[in-house]
Structure formats: structure tokens, C-alpha cells
């Protein structure tokens, strides 16, 4: 089983398909769960720990807006753990303020620079595209399984 980072990191479809094809999806929801369950952390938005700004600074300089660094701090554990990645472009719901837009760009850039297998797709709009979308994800997951077996 390979840990696959999915982007958009809260995607239902990607999380489901990755799990369906036998791998572990790395999603934002698990980071959030850890944040809200950890003892000693207050309710959001007062849940920033001293570790979070440091994590954000790994990816962006101090003069970069805090919104970007804050978001990157949440994505950091996912990027660190990732052994492969699936990025889907043209996700309408990840459209947002400049913080969201720049974080999307930076996160994709960081993932691309990481030396891991990567699949980049576009959200499907009809049945045929969806079939191709599912097939590509399945083939990618299969290829990871065979690579993992060879490595082991």
C-alpha cells in the first residue's frame, strides 16, 4: 500500500478512488482531525501551535502572506508523507481568495519538485472523460503496486 497525496486535498472522488484501488489517500481531513483531537489544542481558530509557523516557513519566506504559510503548514505533513501524488486541475471549488490561489500554485509546485511518481489530470465533465479519468487513476495505482512489490 502506497501513501498517495491527492490534490485538491479534500477531494471526495480522489480519496474514494485511491482507497478503492488499494492505496492510502493522504487528505486534508486527517490533518484536521488530528488538529481538533489533539489534547491541549483549543478550538479553531485558536489552534495554531508554535510548530505551525515553522512548518509554513519551510515553503515560503516570512514576507509571504500568512494565509499561504498557514495553509502550507497544514499541507506539510501530507507532502512529507507522500510516496506518490495525484493532482487534478480545474477544480472549481478550490477557487478562492489570493491565499487559496497562491497556496494551490505553491503546493502543486512543491509536489512537482518532489521526486515521487505523479499523475496530473483534469476534472471530467462527461461520461467518456470520467471513464478515462477512472482508468488513468486505476492504471497509476496498479503501476505503484507493482513498483512497491519490486522495491520490497
Amino acid at each position, binding site marked *: 500500500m502506497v501513501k498517495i497525496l491527492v490534490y*485538491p486535498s*479534500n*477531494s*471526495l*472522488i480522489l*480519496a*474514494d*478512488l485511491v*482507497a478503492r484501488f488499494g492505496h492510502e489517500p493522504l*487528505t*486534508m*481531513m*486527517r*490533518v*484536521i*482531525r488530528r*488538529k*481538533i*483531537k489533539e489534547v491541549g489544542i483549543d*478550538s*479553531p481558530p485558536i489552534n495554531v501551535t508554535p510548530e505551525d509557523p515553522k512548518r509554513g516557513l519551510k515553503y515560503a519566506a516570512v514576507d509571504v502572506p500568512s494565509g499561504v504559510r498557514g495553509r502550507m503548514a497544514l499541507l506539510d505533513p501530507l507532502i512529507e508523507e507522500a510516496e506518490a501524488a495525484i493532482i487534478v486541475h*480545474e*477544480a*472549481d*471549488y478550490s477557487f478562492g481568495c489570493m491565499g487559496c490561489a497562491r497556496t494551490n500554485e505553491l503546493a502543486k509546485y512543491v509536489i512537482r519538485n518532489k521526486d515521487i511518481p505523479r499523475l496530473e489530470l*483534469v*476534472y*471530467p*465533465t*462527461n*461520461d*467518456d*472523460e*470520467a*471513464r*478515462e*479519468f*477512472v*482508468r488513468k487513476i*486505476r492504471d497509476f495505482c496498479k503501476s505503484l503496486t507493482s513498483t512497491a512489490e519490486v522495491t520490497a
Partner: protein
Amino acid sequence: MVSDETTKMVVLAESSPILPSELALRAYELSTDAVVKETCYGLIVTGSEKSVDETIKELRKLDPSGIFVKDRGFPPGDSRRCRAVRGGGPRPGFHQLERESNILPNISYGLENIEEPSDVKGREKRKKLTIDRFIEIIEEQSKEDVNG
């Protein structure tokens, strides 16, 4: 709270013949330790990781290609997310779910017919709004605001 407590969302594709109430009934029949909440899109299942996984494995059998599952950070009814306490408005995360729910029937079709050959033509790249058109929109809007 159980230390390994986990929450998952079970979302039904619009094309699925199953109703959220049927899913809930099946989940009750299973009598695992997981707590189930019926929603408009499907279910929220919460409990120990083992019981949640067990429940979802059984639920998936009802419609393997029409039931989609993802993790959820907050437990059901959490006051930081629940609309009942927050005074209405869309719940954070609603827009993502709404957008992806629209294409779940397509994905469901893709899963069922994954082996069929497909003839996908290259999609035209989305064009960006030109500055001139953007200025026109601003002018139209400001006129409407003045008149309206």
C-alpha cells in the same frame, strides 16, 4: 471520545437507486459500534476505525459503483461545523461536496464501464476573461447599481 475515533462520509451518486434512508437502515441492521447519522447526501459514520471500516465495507455492497466514501475531520453535530449552532448558511465543505456530487454519476459510469474503449477528444482549454470584457462587466454592474 475513543482515541482511534474516526468519522467518514458516505455519499451517494445521484444515479444510485439507493436512498440515504436505506443506507441508514442497513447500517442499523449491521449493529456495529459505529454511530450513524442520515443526511441528504448519504450518511456520516463515526466510531472506532474498525467498526467504521466494517460498516462501510458492508454498505458498499449495496451499490459498489454508486457509493463514495471520504474521511471527515469533525465528528457529526460538532458545534464548530453544525449549521444548527452556526446560525445557518452553508456548512464549511459544502461547496466542495456539491461540486463533486454533480459529477459522481459520471464517475459511477466510469467505474462500471472502465474496460470499454473510449474516444475522448482533447478538451478545449478554458479561455480567460479579457480585460475589455471585464471592464464592460464592471460598467454594466455599476450602472445597474446606480439605477437600481
